[in-house]
Structure formats: structure tokens, C-alpha cells
């Protein structure tokens, strides 16, 4: 395995040397090359889920075709191969996230399960009667509901940091709400509904200054920006492979070993134990203690391939390309008559949420679909954000590394059609 540093260095130096070849990248994604309603697909629903490169599709099917078996239990050759493939994926994820040890990487179904694991296990042991959990107005439902459930179970209360009209966290309010009763802070790195990049470094510093651990929901950050959990010094960071051009039903939770060691198990079952008798069960070491049952083995292999794919391009180059594209898209959409962008934070990634005067987002979505353009419309699993901006829903174009200025131009044309239908 290459050391995490090496891939990064390669990526960074090549960023300056090589142009970002978006045509080549597009060529690697078979899903992009199809007609929808007779028109070439423009895929702008990446925040919901992303398309998959051939390399990842092949890794999964090759694994099933040649190396598949259950892991961690057989003495036979295939089980050994499968175990190796599964564990080497973990090392790739570890390096990608910048974790100190593979014991800190727990494979989960996705961000949702990662957060539920922490809320259930860490929460059970650390959040009690009268304690507080601090989240923000812009969280995805999956970073709200597990904490609500915990608070209800344990008699704790949920505190929510407000956001301003641009869709940025009110940091003064955060400081006020962060108190001695706060047992955990849970905040998204990038908002899926607004695109806001939150100042998580500052949040982590402030929380740590009074000994409160921080969970970062990285679902929307991982496909767009480099992550370094050690540099951030966050306590938990969780991601979903399917938003990063990898398989669905797969993700990772990074958790500091010192915390994970003390956390009670999440689910019980096979693989998470060392020995079981009816009198006493001894739990397995990390991270296996948190991976009960036969996991998504091929999903992990696909996740590993996804990370190889992203490293081959370089997260910094991806971020730079997308930043430029987001600028272009934001300016282009601002010029559409009657269009209002929801979420205009000064630090943003990948997402342009918008409403059109007098036209419901659902109608926008249907008409754009007729033009071959896939956007998401609705509340984006962030109803409190919709309430904050006084809208029932928005339309959302979310960009990824394979999108182009032409995609944005098609969207703008599509919006002209929307207006024409409603004129």
C-alpha cells in the first residue's frame, strides 16, 4: 500500500502540471452517455447520488467473478483473497481520510448508519438526562433524527445553531449554545441543500476547548474536497461511497481510536465477537467490534476502487475544477429572470439550490426531465432549511467532477423552456 502522503503529493504536483481533462473523465462514466427523452443526459443530481466510473464497476464484477467468498472466517484460498480485498479497501479509506490507523475505520452502510452508530453507541454511554446535543439548522435529516431519538431515549435535549440569510452558520450563536452540558456537536461539512462549506475547523477547536467531541457529516464533502481527519482533529467523520462515484450501501465511519475503544458495541452478531458463551461474550478488537454480521464485501472492494479512482485524479484538482464550474453556474443562473438562489454562503461547494418566481420546483423538475436534464426537486431531506428560507421546496443542481459548462448552458436553456411553458 502506498503511504497516504504519497498519493497526495502526486495529486498536488500533477494539479499544476496537467490540465483537468474532463472529456477523458466523462468517457470513463458509461451512465453519462445515454439519451433521456431523446436528448443527451445532463446529470445534475450528484448530491443525491453520483454515476460510477467503469473502473469501479469492473472492480466489483471482477471481485464477484473471481475472488468472492465470505471474509475473516475461512481457511480456504477464496476466503483469504476476499478478506485481503476487503481489508485493503479499509487501508485505502484510511489513507483517503487521513486516519492514523485502520482500527479507526468502521465500514458502514453509509453516512446514515455512521451517524446512527455514534448516536446509539457513543450516545448511550455519554449522553444522559439533562445533557445536550448540538446540531445546526442546515443538517440533513440523517444528522437530526438519530440525535432526536437519542435525546428522547436518554432525557437529553437537542440544541440547534441558526443560520443567516446567506445560509451560513451563526457562529456567535454557536458559541453561546456550546455549553458545559453539550456532550457532542454534530455538524455537516458541506450542506446538501445549500452547498455551504461550514467552518468545521473552528467548530472543532471551540468544542474541544471545552472537551466536547465533534462528529462531522462528510457525505457531501467527500466527493468534492480532500479530507484530513487528523489535521481537522475531528472525533468522528462519516462518508457514503455512493456519493463519491462508488457503490451504494457502503460507507465509512472514522472514529478516534481512543473514543472507539470505550464505546459499547452497536449491533451484536457474528464477526464482532472473539468468543461467545451463554455466560459471557468477549468482543472483538477494533474495528471489527463495530461490524456485526457479513458486511457489504463487494461494496468495500468497490469503495477501494473508488478511492483509487479519485486519487488518480487528485482531490485538489477536483476541488479546483468544481470551484470554477460552480462560479460559472452561479453566474449563469443569476441571469435567469425570476430565479433566486437559495444559499449564497461565501464558502460553497457543488450545490446550486434555487426557486423560480411563480413556478413550483416540482414543475421545474418535470420540465427539465423532458429536456434530458436531471435535477432534484423537493426538500432534499432538509426540511428545517426549507422552513428557514420560507419555501416548501427548491430545485437543486448539484455538480460533480464530470460536469461541464455545456451542462450548465443546457440547464439555462431548460429553464427558458420552463418559463416558456408557464408564460
Amino acid at each position, binding site marked *: 500500500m502506498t503511504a497516504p502522503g504519497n498519493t497526495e503529493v502526486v495529486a498536488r504536483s500533477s494539479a499544476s502540471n496537467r490540465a483537468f481533462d474532463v472529456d477523458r473523465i466523462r468517457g470513463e462514466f458509461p451512465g453519462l452517455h445515454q439519451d433521456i427523452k431523446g436528448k443527451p443526459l445532463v446529470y445534475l443530481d450528484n448530491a443525491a447520488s453520483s454515476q460510477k466510473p467503469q473502473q469501479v464497476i469492473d472492480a466489483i464484477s471482477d471481485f464477484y467473478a473471481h475472488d468472492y467468498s465470505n471474509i475473516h472466517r475461512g481457511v480456504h484460498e477464496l476466503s483469504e483473497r476476499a478478506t485481503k480485498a476487503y481489508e485493503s479497501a479499509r487501508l485505502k479509506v484510511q489513507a483517503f481520510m487521513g486516519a492514523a490507523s485502520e482500527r479507526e475505520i468502521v465500514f458502514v452502510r453509509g453516512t446514515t448508519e455512521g451517524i446512527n452508530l455514534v448516536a446509539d453507541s457513543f450516545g448511550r454511554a455519554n449522553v444522559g438526562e439533562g445533557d445536550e446535543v448540538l446540531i445546526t439548522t442546515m443538517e440533513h435529516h440523517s444528522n437530526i433524527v438519530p440525535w432526536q431519538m437519542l435525546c428522547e431515549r436518554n432525557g437529553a435535549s437537542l440544541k440547534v445553531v441558526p443560520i443567516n440569510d446567506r445560509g451560513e452558520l451563526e457562529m456567535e450563536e454557536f458559541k453561546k449554545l456550546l455549553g458545559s452540558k453539550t456532550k457532542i456537536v454534530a455538524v455537516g461539512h458541506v450542506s446538501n441543500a445549500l452547498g455551504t462549506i461550514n467552518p468545521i475547523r473552528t467548530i472543532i477547536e471551540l468544542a474541544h476547548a471545552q472537551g466536547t467531541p465533534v462528529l462531522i457529516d462528510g457525505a457531501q464533502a467527500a466527493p468534492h474536497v480532500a479530507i484530513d481527519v487528523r489535521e481537522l482533529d475531528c472525533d468522528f467523520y462519516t462518508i457514503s461511497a455512493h456519493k463519491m462515484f462508488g457503490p451504494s450501501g457502503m460507507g465509512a465511519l472514522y472514529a478516534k481510536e481512543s473514543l472507539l475503544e470505550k464505546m459499547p458495541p452497536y449491533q451484536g452478531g457474528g464477526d464482532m465477537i472473539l468468543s461467545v458463551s451463554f455466560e459471557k461474550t468477549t468482543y472483538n478488537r477494533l474495528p471489527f467490534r463495530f461490524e456485526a454480521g457479513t458486511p457489504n464485501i463487494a461494496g468495500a472492494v468497490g469503495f477501494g476502487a473508488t478511492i483509487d479512482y479519485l486519487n488518480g485524479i487528485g482531490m485538489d484538482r477536483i476541488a479546483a475544477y468544481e470551484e470554477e464550474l460552480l462560479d460559472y453556474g452561479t453566474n449563469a443562473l443569476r441571469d435567469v429572470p425570476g430565479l433566486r438562489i437559495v444559499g449564497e454562503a461565501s464558502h460553497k461547494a457543488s450545490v446550486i439550490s434555487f426557486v423560480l418566481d411563480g413556478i413550483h420546483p416540482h414543475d421545474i423538475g418535470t420540465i427539465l426531465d423532458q429536456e434530458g436534464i436531471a435535477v432534484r426537486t423537493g426538500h432534499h431531506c432538509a426540511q428545517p432549511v426549507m422552513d428557514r428560507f420560507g419555501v416548501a421546496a427548491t430545485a437543486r443542481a448539484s455538480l460533480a467532477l464530470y460536469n461541464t459548462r455545456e451542462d450548465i448552458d443546457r440547464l439555462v436553456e431548460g429553464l427558458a423552456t420552463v418559463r416558456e411553458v*408557464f408564460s
Partner: protein
Amino acid sequence: MSTDALRELYQEVILDHSKKPRNFREIDNASHDAKGHNPLCGDRLSLYVVVEDGVIRDMSFKGAGCAISTASASMMTEVLKGKTQAEAEALFESFHGVVTGKTDADEDALGKLAVFAGVRDYPVRVKCATLAWHTLNAALAEKEEAVSTE
């Protein structure tokens, strides 16, 4: 750039009703009312009905929704005034059959509601077209809880 296919769905009548919904008001002394919600798109509507001797004397709605759900609610309130409850139920059945593509649009049975036939080509929009009708069912059945399309 062709908008013909879209015109099948967004007929002039539908656009007109969505921009200027009829019977868009509350009724203080409604004999029946109910709330409907489509969580998928955030549409919410409140429906008010005045039934006397089994006949719908007045009906109105309030709320915010997409063009299809607003027009459907607006046209439903127009069409059903003066109809009996049984006639309203029969009409919903024909309407439902047409928007889900199970039956062909029968102008005689549906009258001007036949403009919603285009919805059949947009399966995800069926819930928008039927939200008001489901809410009416709930109102007449005197259900307390908000109706949800999900």
C-alpha cells in the same frame, strides 16, 4: 426546442387554474374539512366542504403546491359543487383510472377533468393530481389526521 410533449401535461386550462385557482378561500362553517400533504414535493392543502342532505353545496381550498396539484384542487372544487357524495366518489374513481393510465379518458364521464389525462405519462406526478381528491375522501370520511400521499 419543442414544448409539445410538455403541453400534453401542462394544458392551458391547467396553467390557468394553477395561476388563478378558483374557490381559493377558507369556509368558516364547513361541515367537513381535512388537510392533505405530499411529502415528496412539500405540497400542502386544506380542503373545506359544505354538505347538505348528501349534496356538496360548497367547496374550497387553501395551500401551496405545484401547478398540477393546485389546478387539480381548483378544478375539483368547481366540478363537484352540486354533486352528491356518491357522484363525487364515482368521479374520483374515473379520474384516478385516467391519471394512472388504467382507463382511457372518457370525456362524458370526466368532463373538463379530462385535461389531466396527460398525467399518465408522468407516473411521479400522479400523486400531485390526486392529492386534492384523497383529501376530499378524508374530509368526507371525517378523518382527523392529515392525509399523506406517501
